[in-house]
Every structure is written in C-alpha cells, then in structure tokens.
C-alpha cells in the first residue's frame, strides 16, 4: 500500500527522530512510504488563532502533495484532526475530500488499518501515557473519562505489546497539558501551570518517561522538565513502538 507521510512542522524542525521512527515503523509493516517534500504545515496555528483564511495556503499544499496515496499517516493527533475537520481546497475539493477520509494518526492506523497485534520492540522503563486532547476527544483514540462508556485505548493497546514496559497510573488520566497552540504563549501563566501539574502527576507516580501521540504536548512538558532539571524524559510513542 502507498502511504504518504505527513510530518508536523515542529517535528520536522525539532524532533526529526520521531518522523524517522514513524517512517521505519510503517515500512516494517510493509507499507511503501513517501514523504512529499513540498509539505509545510497543517495550518492549525493560524486557524486556531481565528485566521482560518490564512491557512488556505497550507490547505492547497496538502491537497496538491497528498492526493495520490492510499493512506496518509501522521504522528500527531492534533494535526490529523485539524486536516480531517478543516481541509478544503479551492482548486480541487474532491482531492481534499479524499484526503480527509484517508488521513490517519499513527496509532489508529496501526490498530484500525494494519490491525497490528504484535510488535518487535523493547522499552524496559516506567512510562506515563499523556492522553493528548485532540487525539483522544477528537479522533476517539481512547475513551474519555467524562463519558459513561466502556474503556478502550489504541495507544495503550500498542504500548502493551512492547516488551518490558511498565505503564504507570496517573491521578488525572486525561487532563490537558496546557500547550493549546498559540495559547502556550498568549496565556503563558495558565499554560505553564497546567503543564507543571501534568509533570507533577507523572513524577509522583514514578514515570521515567512520558509518552503520547502528540509531540507538541511533549515538547511543552519537556520544556518544563528541563527547566526544573528533572530526570524524567519525554518520548513520542512512535519511537517506543519502533523499538
């Protein structure tokens, strides 16, 4: 199957290993993966700030670069959700519609499309799972604590296939980390306080690593961990699953 790789802008610049791990993981399962070089960003930073029109350029780039794949996979819940909900093209709406139907976040692709049941990966550490909001509540990657409904979690299902991993329990299982896009600087005080509280929850429960499906959340938590000189590190789920 032909898979197009959509890489969030900040992963491209700051966390290329996450993209490399995503690519390698997909290739392990037999996908023919291509990373179109003409991509830039999903447009969320502009759109969430109220400037939907300013993200149209990104929309056109995505539509142009990703129209020929069977699937598009992205190692980010929030970018995937944004494209699913908001991708429109003035030049080629039917291509845009196809992309909206074919784009998947990495863990949902592995579980729902590739139907992965085992992984060749080892990570003998205590790991806290941060449930990024857009992936969880938007893409329904896992059950939400507010609802009276049966529990499930695609990311956890995959992590449980990793040898030696010990998943810790958190006090608040799905509270937002406070990144929120431009919120992280526009409402700096609340954003940092939210991040600090998440970090404290993981530290209190013995996490050695904090993982999740969104590097934006992890980047924000990492910034707080590094500032307080903590030993806890962040690691995107793609890197853990890739072994």
């Amino acid at each position, binding site marked *: 199957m032909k898979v197009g790789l959509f890489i969030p802008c900040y992963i491209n*610049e700051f966390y290329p290993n996450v993209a490399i791990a995503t690519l390698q993981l997909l290739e392990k399962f037999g996908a023919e993966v291509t990373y179109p070089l003409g991509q*830039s960003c999903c447009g969320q930073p502009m759109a969430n700030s109220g400037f939907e029109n300013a993200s149209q*350029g990104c929309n056109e780039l995505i539509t142009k670069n990703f129209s020929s794949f069977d699937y598009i996979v992205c190692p980010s819940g929030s970018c995937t959700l944004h494209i699913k909900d908001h991708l429109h093209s003035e030049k080629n709406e039917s291509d845009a519609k196809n992309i909206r139907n074919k784009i998947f976040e990495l863990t949902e692709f592995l579980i729902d499309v590739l139907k992965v049941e085992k992984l060749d990966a080892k990570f003998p550490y205590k790991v806290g799972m941060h449930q990024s909001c857009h992936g969880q509540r938007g893409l329904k990657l896992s059950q939400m604590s*507010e609802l009276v409904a049966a529990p499930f979690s695609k990311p956890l299902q995959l992590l449980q296939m990793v040898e030696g991993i010990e998943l810790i329990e958190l006090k608040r299982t799905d509270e*937002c980390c406070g990144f929120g896009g431009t*919120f992280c600087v526009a*409402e700096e005080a*609340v954003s940092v306080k*939210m991040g600090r509280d998440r970090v404290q929850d993981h530290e209190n429960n013995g996490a050695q690593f904090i993982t999740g499906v969104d590097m934006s959340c992890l980047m924000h938590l990492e910034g707080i961990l590094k500032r307080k000189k903590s030993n806890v590190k962040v690691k995107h789920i793609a890197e853990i699953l890739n072994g």
Partner: protein
Amino acid sequence: MGNSGKDHAQLADIFNKDEARVDWHDETLWFVRQKRDKAVKAIPEWEQLRETASQIKNNVLSNLDAYLIQFEEQAKKNGAIVHWAADAKEHNEIVHSILAKHSVTKIVKSKSMLTEECHLNPYLKDKGIDVVDTDLGERIVQLADEAPSHIVLPCIHWKKEEIGELFHQHLGTPKGNADPQFLTNAARLHLREKFLTRKVAITGVNFAVAETGEFVVCTNEGNADMGAHLADVHIACMGMEKIIPHRKHLGVFLRLLARSATGQPITTYSSHFKTPRKKQELHIVLVDNGRSVQLGRKDFRNSLKCIRCAACFNTCPVYRRSGGHSYHTAIAGPIGSILAPNLDMKQYADLPFASTLCGSCSNVCPVKIDIHDQLYKWRQVLVKEGHVSIVKKAGINGMAFMLNHPSLLKVIGKTGRWAMRNIPFVVNNKMNPWYKQRDLPDAPKESFNEWYIKNKTKKNEQ
C-alpha cells in the same frame, strides 16, 4: 474589557502569582468534577439521557415563540402577572416598578444568574432598595462587595478563614472562628430574620413549563422557598430560553441538573410554583437581553440550551487555574465564553481564546452543547470583525507567508536552528514568552526533510 481594562490572560497571570492558592482552587473544583463522575456513572443510561435533553432543547429553540406564548397564557390563567423585558435595563425597571408600587425598600433575593447578568443589585441599590442575597455563597460575596466567581458555587474562591473574618466584621461572630458549621449557623440566624420581615422575594427560575405555566426553582438551602412563601410579592426572573415544553420533561432535566452540577442525585428542594399563594402577588419577568440575537446565529444558538449547571466550569483546566473573575463577566467559564461575545464582541473578544480547545466541556454538558467547537468558531468571527490586535494579525500573516513557501521555510528553519545552537540568547531571553518558565527544545543539526533527502530520495524517485 471589564475589570480595569485587563483581559483574561492578564487577570489569569495575576491569579497565578499565588501558586498554592491556584492549587487549592484547582483541587477543590476538580473534586466537584469527580463527584459528578461518580454520580453519573450510577446511571447506566446517562449518555442517552443527555441526548434526550439535548433534543428536547433543540425542539424548544425551534419553537420558542409558540412556547413563550403558551407559557404566558397558562401562567396568566394561574393568576401570575407576566412581564416581558427586551433588555437588562428594562428588566431592572420592571422589577423596581413592582417594588415602588408596593412601597417596599427591603427585599430578599435567592440565586439568579439572570439578575447578575442584568446587574440588578447595583441598580436597585442606587434607587435606595436594600437587597439581601440569601444563598449563603452569594451573601458572602455580597458582604465582600464582589461578584460571584462561579454560577453554582459563588464563593468557591474564598477560604474559610477569610469567610470567618468577613462574618466577624459583618455579623459579629467571634474572631478567628472558621468552622463551617458555626459560620453557617450564624448565617442561618442572620438570614432568618430577613425572611421573616421582608415583604418581597425575588427568585430565579431553573425551568419554566410551557404546558402548565408553572416554574421550578432548585436549591439545597431552601432559601428561595423561605423567601417566597413568607413574602407578599414573589418576583421570578427568567431568561426566556429556560422554557421546557411539557411537565414530564422535568423528569429528564431534574435527573441531569444536580448530578452535573455537584454530583448530587437531586437538589434538596425542587419547588414547583404554579399559582400565587393566597393574598400574594406572583410576577414572572421574561427576559431577552441578547438571546434572540444569539438564537439567530446558526453556529452559536445551541449555547441557549444551557441549564446553568456549571459542569463545564468544573472540568475546565483553564477555569480551575484562572478563577471566575478572570473572565470579567457574570457567567464565566466555557459557557460564558460563548455567550458573552454575543452581548459585546469588543469587551469579550479575549474569552474564546482563554481555552486550549481540549473538548472536556462538551463531554460533560448535560444538554450536549458543542462548546469547544463554538469557541473555535467565535475566534473566526472575532478576527473577521476586527477584534484582534495588529501585532497578532501581523504575526499570523508572517507565519502564514513562511508556511505557504516550503523552500523559504527550509531556509528559515535551518537558520533558526543554527541560531538556537550557536547564539541561544537570541531566543533564550525575557522577550520570549515561551522561555519565561520553560526551556526550548534542543535544535538538531538536520531537519527530517534534510534527513529524508539524504537517506531516502536515492531510493524514491522524487
């Protein structure tokens, strides 16, 4: 903006100066969210109940004028006097005119967010009327000359020692006594005297039934009843969207309200008022105040389904860490942030941005308002209407330009990363709001784009 010109971000920044207090405020409200979770999980059909309530309210909004006419007709048959107020000013004038007609200058009032929205208390005070708020939380903020910070728990931002000191000053309780039981008892005695002597009681309305003309007032304290059943005149003030079609629908809403609000299966009292007591006058004031405008906004009309439970406040990680006063409006929190811009876009342009769009609010809403989607949509409206700073606009346009030109982006990315590695002070400084309390990520030598070109494009013909 209200509140000395500061917006939510600035007020939240001030609130966060006292981290221990923020922790206390956050933990207290999270506890209420947890109580809500426990209560709703005891109802196996909870999600279906939400869906039913949501559909009932959808019907109400689509048929509101007919229901209002029906409610008025029934209420009049029951002996109530019905008034219509187009806006807050008219509401206040109507209430005052009733008091003036009866030559009353001392009244009791139980909780009504509608009267907060209309700023009724200061209006009446100006006219020489002494209003005593009888809900304990509201009485506390009233004595402190503050607005409530939460629509269900008005003084959630006050510590018991502070309340003890307040009562010592105003009610003469012993200095240093912060025992909730003792303080509540002091308030009981103090307010009992007001109930027994005042001739006019104002209450809010939780639900108004179009079919029968009755309305329901829910309290835990019994203060609405103590006021209304001892008064010669009962004035019930309601937002016109509080209508529900049939009496039997109360069976749905009364199952949802208290569980969502505080985690109780029902409030202590759910009082159904239909006729005035013998020798009593019963007035009902129906208020628009911007609701018909919101009704016409296709993307935002669902906010009018709100039953004012505040479940969205308790779950909101931003509200818990910024406090109700940071929203500088009568109704704070997530629901307030989608209601207020309708009243005044300029004054409340900051509120839809006081959110990470995490979506928790929409999940706890008993009537399934798509709150987080509306927050996103309000952002688009506010920008289109020009309620955003020139600096922000320039920044966004600059970002968009860069992201629309991938080859330019590559150059800027590489340069930026080089700078971060070699001249970090360029970004690691006080001017960078990210850097204030967080480190920046390490800047790798190679972007993924560059790695891919080097390692993969020999194999893939690109």
